[in-house]
């Protein structure tokens, strides 16, 4: 007997760090658009009755409108963390999901990204205490855009997950050059003693400069995760090793499979309290 595949409508906003396979066990993607960043998507985009789930990856001006539209069309929704640029909007989405009896699931896909997962696993396993993280992140979005704020919020949430601790002190220095390119330098401390240096820059529309690199300095080794290159570099007392994580499941596979489990069980509530805290912190960094 042939099992019916779960059909997931995929909306990609902005540059992705890992690749998106079009099919996996029990589900397949239907790309609804390749690029919605600049143009408005048609309201009919979710009209296919066979689409049971909509996945919105990344952040863009259309994110909230599309998310709400998907829920109104009674689709289950997987939307990258943060679900929206404000807690008010996130609450509206949550209410819409309840009203339409659908699932609203908003995981931070950075936490499922293969090289970052491997970095975290190694930090926890055998590297000794984590001393610091140095993160460099280039975004396509303009610094004063809601999209940039959401990207920073996603990054902050992901860093807390990597460090396994909460930010206790954050200091930010911003560039004030008249240019479409701008930068923030952030120094941070965590409640477990770890220090971090975050370099976050906006390259406007220049997607080739966008990306993410994470260095973890541990007691016994230094780790460098390069999600763009799908690799992790390990520098230990035994020498240096570069390992590919291409064989790992991309983040979206894990997210869709988790969503499938949530559909079968209880609803996944939005963690609005954490969302508020992270968005406030991001706004404090990005705002003037």
């Amino acid at each position, binding site marked *: 007997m042939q099992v019916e595949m779960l059909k997931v409508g995929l909306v990609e906003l902005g540059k992705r760090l890992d690749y998106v396979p079009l099919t996996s066990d029990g589900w397949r993607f239907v790309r609804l658009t390749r690029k919605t960043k600049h143009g408005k998507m048609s309201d009919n985009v979710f009209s296919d009755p066979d689409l049971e789930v909509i996945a919105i990856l990344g952040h863009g001006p259309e994110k909230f409108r599309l998310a709400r539209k998907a829920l109104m069309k009674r689709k289950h929704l997987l939307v990258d963390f943060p679900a929206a640029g404000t807690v008010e909007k996130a609450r509206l989405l949550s209410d819409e999901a309840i009203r339409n009896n659908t699932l609203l699931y908003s995981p931070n896909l950075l936490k499922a990204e293969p090289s970052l997962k491997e970095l975290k696993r190694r930090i926890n396993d055998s590297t000794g205490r984590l*001393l*610091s993280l*140095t993160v*460099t992140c*280039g975004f396509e979005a303009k610094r004063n855009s809601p999209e940039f704020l959401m990207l920073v919020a996603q990054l902050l949430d992901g860093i807390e997950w990597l460090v396994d601790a909460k930010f206790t*002190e954050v*200091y*930010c*220095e*911003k*560039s*004030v*050059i008249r*240019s*479409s*390119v*701008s*930068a*923030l*330098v*952030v*120094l*941070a*401390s965590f409640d477990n*003693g770890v*220090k*971090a*240096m975050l*370099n976050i*820059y906006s*390259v406007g*529309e*220049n997607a*080739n*400069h966008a990306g993410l690199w994470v*260095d973890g*300095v541990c*007691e*016994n*080794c*230094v780790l460098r995760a390069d999600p763009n290159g799908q690799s992790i*570099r390990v*520098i*230990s*007392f*035994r*020498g*240096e090793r570069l390992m590919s994580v291409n064989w790992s499941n991309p983040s979206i596979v894990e997210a869709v499979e988790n969503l499938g489990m949530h559909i079968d069980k209880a609803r996944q509530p939005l963690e609005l309290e954490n969302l508020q805290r992270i968005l406030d912190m991001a706004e404090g960094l990005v705002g003037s």
Partner: protein
Amino acid sequence: MTSDRILGIGVIGCGSIAEESHLPAIGRIPSARLVAVADSDESKARLVSEKFRAERWYGDYKELLENEKVDAVDICTPTKYHPEITVAAAQAGKHVLCEKPVALSLAETDRMISACSKNKVKFMVAHSRRFIPRYSTVRRIIREGLIGEPVWTTQISRRTKMEPGSWYFDPKMTYGPIAEIGIHDADLLRWMLSDDVVQVRGIARVTNSDRRVYDQIFAALKFSKGMVASFEVGYVLPKAYTHYTSLEVLGSTGLISASDNHMNVVTQGTENGVIYPLAYSDLLSVNSAYETEIIAFIDSVLSGVEPPVTGADARAALEIILAVHQSIQRAELVKLPLRDAS
């Protein structure tokens, strides 16, 4: 070289920086003659003298300063002793090349600059990274406008963990890696960007309880023209891994990325948005910096021109580092120039 003369050099301090870097470089320079070495550890001075074929060795640097064949001194001692030796050398009429950081305070630095000026001897501080082709190439790329106006830069300088007994962890001798390594980052930033720092914030930690100074430091800097920078320095690498450095500079139309472990490239934006990756082989090279540096010093002495790294340059770099150190201790933003030179 602009002269056929040969400069007689006396090296003061025979520790690792002298033995591994300065003395071998001096031996390769035709316009340099190693006249003498001095170290408070006499056995060390004698051994180094034999190894590098110095004409004389001394257990007291003051005796070296009396040697008339010594035209210039190369000071390779721990930072704490730089001011005393520089002033004494200047008063003895010797030109001075001094290891970085120039001193532990701005007041001492001013005293060193003043003594050299008063006695009409050249004073250069050994900010060696300026002489590494990687960094001079980055500076040239920036000055040629290839990446537009600089917006952000970051540097990482990690060194291997050192033994706790080293003077590098003695707060009476140094502020630790912020002074010994961070001074490179401070000097390079000013030099490459041709701009001055107006405010800094630093955070730091002690990674091992046996360390008496902060051994891992992070700093955020703002420049007068509005660009921002960050740097990380520390003695944190596994012992077998001696050092790792990386540098990135983002401009309004391009990005420079140069590190020890990765491909070194410049990407440049154009008016129609196309990005061209450009590779620069010079970005890979870190060799021969000490030789180039000492040749530049000798050249300035023999031809009478200003050294490529002046006392004022070294003072400005030190001021940034002192500001970061203050910021760490006070847990607050520190603005430059510093009010208290001591």
